[in-house]
């Protein structure tokens, strides 16, 4: 815009802004219609796909799929204590359900990301919650699982030998993302200062190895149990080829979203660079 007619420009600006507001107004109506439609779809999906605490139903749903992810990662949100399914107990309940679905579907690794990491300090309670939920699904013969918190280096296992577990659950929080990479950069700085590491040795491979050690391997499928795809500072290194899934306007951890994510994943193709 030129500065020759400031007043004319102001008028033109407000005129254009008025057009924009009209567009926004129309969009808000469309958005409300879409919201109702999305909620309706979600309701129908949750009636169509209902696990009913039976691993057999989940297995039947999964058996039609061409491929399964080896590692699933889920972004769950902490709700306020007053809400339904709120607080730390709500997150534990979500993890317990996800663990049961993964075990029934035959996915050997589950990573749960929660921004605050509220369950990191109550791993024992989490283990109880998961065991309890698995009983509801599998009866007394519950599959074995391990819970790992990479941030505190804590590992809890139902088996004596943690390598044999049917499911590996890892709990991630914000600190496992960028702050861990920062920490790694600091360490590498110190190592290069003391000449234990040459700058040329700092390769993608080295960093990948370190971060896999510190945080875990890259997931194949990331399910975001929120109304929009919001990565919430998820560890950036681990998102390279991860398939992402979310259901618009969904705000709970439910089986319909989980199984639809698996279906979507089964259809996807990876052809990196080729």
């Amino acid at each position, binding site marked *: 815009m030129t500065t020759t007619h400031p007043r004319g420009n102001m008028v033109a600006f407000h005129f*254009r*802004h008025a057009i924009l507001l009209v567009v926004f107004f129309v969009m808000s109506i469309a*958005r409300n219609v879409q919201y109702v439609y999305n909620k309706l779809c979600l309701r129908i999906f949750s009636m169509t796909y209902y696990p009913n605490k039976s691993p057999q139903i989940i297995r039947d749903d999964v058996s039609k799929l061409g491929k399964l992810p080896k590692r699933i990662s889920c972004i769950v949100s902490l709700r306020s204590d007053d809400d339904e399914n709120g607080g730390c107990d709500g997150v534990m309940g979500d993890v317990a359900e996800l663990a049961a679905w993964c075990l029934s579907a035959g996915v050997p690794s589950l990573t749960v990301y929660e921004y605050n990491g509220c369950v990191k300090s109550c791993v024992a309670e989490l283990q109880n919650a998961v065991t309890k939920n698995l009983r509801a699904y599998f009866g007394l013969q519950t599959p074995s699982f391990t819970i790992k918190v990479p941030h505190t280096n804590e590992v809890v296992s139902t088996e004596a030998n943690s390598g044999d577990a049917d499911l590996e659950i890892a709990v991630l929080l914000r600190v496992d993302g960028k702050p861990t990479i920062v920490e790694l950069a600091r360490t590498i700085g110190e190592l290069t200062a003391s000449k234990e590491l040459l700058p040329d040795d700092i390769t993608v491979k080295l960093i990948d190895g370190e971060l896999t050690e510190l945080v875990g391997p890259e997931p194949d499928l990331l399910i975001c149990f929120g109304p929009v795809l919001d*990565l919430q500072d998820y560890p*950036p*290194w681990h998102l390279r*080829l991860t398939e*992402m899934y979310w259901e618009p306007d969904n705000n709970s951890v439910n089986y319909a979203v989980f199984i639809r994510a698996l279906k979507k994943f089964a259809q*996807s193709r990876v052809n990196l*660079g080729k």
Partner: protein
Amino acid sequence: MSEWVSTFPGYSLLMSRIKKVIGSVSRTGPVPRHIGLIMDGNRRFAKNHQIELKEGHNMGFDSMAAVLELLYESGVSCATVYAFLIENFKRLKTEVDWLMDLAKSKLMQISQNGELCDKYGIRVRILGNFAFLPDDVNVVLKDIMHTTRKNTRATLNVCFPYTSRDEMAHAIRTTAEDANKDSGLDVDEHTLTDHMYTAGLPPLDLLIRTSGTYRLSDFLLWQCVPSLCAIVFSDRLWPEFTPWDMTKILFMWSFNKYWYGHGNGQTMRRVVDEPLVRAMDRTDLAQSLWDSDASASPTATSTGYKVYASSPSDASDITAASVVS
């Protein structure tokens, strides 16, 4: 159909007029400062339409120029495009050579007098690991960066050849070197951000991936994980991606930012643990302060029908209530 229409006299003039109008309207509202584009689907497009691979890439480039024109008209100050990833060197040698030639000639073309860069004052920056490139391409790219260096209105980052992991490794390496030179350097997320190739640019607000693939494919991973960044996936193949599709995405982002205070749209309220708030680093605090400033813009209150929601959860309550009634 569209090709047939585009042969009409005055078509390109009309298109650029329309873009000007759309741009002038959309720049009166919230506009993303930095947009990332993953231009995927050129090869699939060529295959589906049974045209030569070369031609597919060529059309992809034209599509990019058309979309960029709209973006800069709309007041976007920075665009980052994913042109070539390091893994692309695995492709057939003839195709790689052809892509290199295409990049050379097209980038030269847009940076010439009177073309895109000149028209919008765009500074072209090539981001990536130049060690992988042949010498002649390197020379040309350096030349392009040099000729456009004085442009300040907007920036076009061409990622060539790039992967985000390589960028992060580069950032860690250079940070380590700097920390050794200056022992007082306190390494935090800021420091690393400043050592990425995108240092000094505004934070990424919008990332678009075409061709119906729901992956980030090693592009701007560090920059896109904050909640501030909206990620949009489009089902269109890149050569089919028109400025009109871009307009829809741009208006959607703008609408979401204006209506819900968040480019992503209607989000849940984030519950943050008290101890964590205290431990939060400066980056986040500065960012959230900036956000609350932005949401208090005068345009938000001048509307009669809706006052800016103070938090995303309020917005969702309102919508839910209106749905029920």
